[in-house]
């Protein structure tokens, strides 16, 4: 119970403190102190009506105490003059939500990408450093250094705590969405479901920027994919879409994804995330309209210029009944180092009855495969010849 409140309030409390104190480390220390006091008191006194405001006020007071203590100490050492007066009463009961400023600071392109990801999970997601380290398979020490470096760069280079102006906003928002999608694609690692974490952050962003179609597009995409997570594996084995047990799909999450997608479209969203969400949604229908999905991939390829999207379009063309045309399309692509290119070629050649070429393609895919489930899947395919 308290754990959930803490997770929900962390980002907002920290954002407010960074805005107030202008310093990431001081804000984090003060927030931690306030949460510790709450953990001690609330079980006896009950949770206050506005836990967020209570936490921010307590944390601000703690921060001010600390600043004053440091100044007094400095004064005693005759290093500084008399301590300045500091306002000690925080009267605001309505705490301004500054999480959007915090998101744009954490995802600033002047920070290294791994630092953006770690800082977003720490500052907004409220994940502990050890949890983030476990999720990214690095030591806690490494993750701590990564976070420290990112925070140091924010301070040293004057990365603003602000929502970018109109001119910078489109590209900065793209950067934020890319970080969330990157977190989503890390999937389930260690004890942390990064997919669920990315969705939580996506929901926050959609609340804060309700008029941005691609924010809803990305949230819809993540929800619709995540709804199928339990069906994607049988034990350790990868299950393809047309063989998935649909009873394992999370129908509530799927419905929510479709509602969010509707909002993206109502706002005029025709961007890459909204289109991918639409494709994902259409792939959950029965029967699947592969010809239309192939068209949508064509639209997406024009938006992104990505050969991987062209590969997916070819798969849709094959599913729509024309594997020969699909094979011609993918043989024009320059994706020799990409494992799905070879597994897709193998699949198409198999369907066209060209067994020897198919086996060769599957073997190439196997050489490039990185995860155990993938390797098992490809080995199974090869055994079927």
């Amino acid at each position, binding site marked *: 119970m308290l754990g959930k409140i803490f997770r929900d309030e962390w980002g907002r409390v920290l954002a407010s403190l960074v805005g107030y104190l202008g310093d990431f480390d001081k804000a984090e220390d003060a927030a931690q102190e306030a949460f510790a006091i709450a953990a001690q008191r609330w079980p006896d006194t009950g949770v206050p009506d506005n836990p967020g405001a209570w936490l921010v006020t307590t944390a601000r007071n703690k921060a001010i105490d600390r600043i004053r203590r440091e100044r007094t100490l400095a004064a005693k050492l005759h290093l500084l003059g008399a301590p300045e007066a500091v306002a000690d009463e925080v009267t605001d009961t309505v705490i301004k939500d500054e999480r959007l400023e915090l998101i744009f600071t954490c995802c*600033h392109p*002047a920070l290294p990408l791994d630092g953006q990801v770690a800082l977003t999970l720490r500052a907004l997601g409220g994940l502990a450093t050890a949890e983030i380290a476990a999720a990214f398979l690095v030591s806690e020490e490494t993750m701590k250094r990564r976070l420290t470096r990112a925070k140091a760069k924010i301070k*040293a*280079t*004057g*990365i*603003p705590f*602000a929502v*970018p*102006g109109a*001119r*910078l906003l489109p590209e900065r928002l793209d950067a934020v969405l890319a970080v969330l999608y990157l977190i989503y694609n890390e999937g389930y690692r260690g004890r942390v479901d990064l997919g669920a974490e990315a969705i939580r952050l996506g929901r926050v962003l959609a609340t804060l920027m309700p008029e941005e179609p691609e924010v809803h597009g990305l949230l819809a995409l993540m929800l619709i994919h995540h709804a199928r997570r339990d069906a994607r594996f049988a034990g350790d084995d990868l299950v393809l879409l047309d063989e998935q047990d649909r009873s394992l799909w999370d129908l509530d999450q799927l419905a929510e994804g479709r509602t969010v997608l509707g909002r993206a479209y109502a706002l005029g969203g025709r961007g890459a995330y909204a289109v991918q969400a639409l494709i994902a949604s259409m792939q959950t229908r029965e029967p699947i309209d592969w010809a239309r999905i192939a068209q949508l991939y064509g639209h997406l390829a024009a938006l992104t210029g990505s050969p991987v999207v062209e590969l997916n379009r070819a798969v849709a063309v094959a599913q729509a009944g024309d594997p020969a045309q699909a094979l011609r399309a993918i043989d024009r692509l320059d994706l020799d180092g990409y494992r799905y290119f070879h597994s897709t070629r193998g699949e198409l050649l198999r369907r066209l009855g060209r067994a020897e070429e198919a086996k060769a393609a599957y073997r190439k895919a196997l050489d490039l495969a990185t995860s155990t489930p993938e390797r098992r899947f490809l080995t199974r395919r090869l055994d079927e010849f």
Partner: protein
Amino acid sequence: MLYAMMIHTDPSRIQALSAADLETAYAEYLELAHDPRCVSFAQLQPADTATCVKGDGDRTLITDGPFADTKEVLGGFCLIEAADLDEVLEMAARSPAVRWVGGTIEVRPVAQS
């Protein structure tokens, strides 16, 4: 905060500009140099005028030219007084080095004593 912008460009790409484009680019440079936030501005002579002094044990070596193997060379620098990094990044993105000849501008805060 005080920031330094170090402007790196490929001289051959500047030479390849048409006379009209070069004129516009120069006008934009002057605009940047006269921006009130620009504390100081220096355009450098071509890289073949450079001389390098290098310490080597207790000797010093004086050599001709810059060390860089890249085509881009330091063409100029300026000091900018700005509220935050984004303000400088925006100025850099609008500069002719970036917009006209695909140059690179390195932005760094200046150490304050």
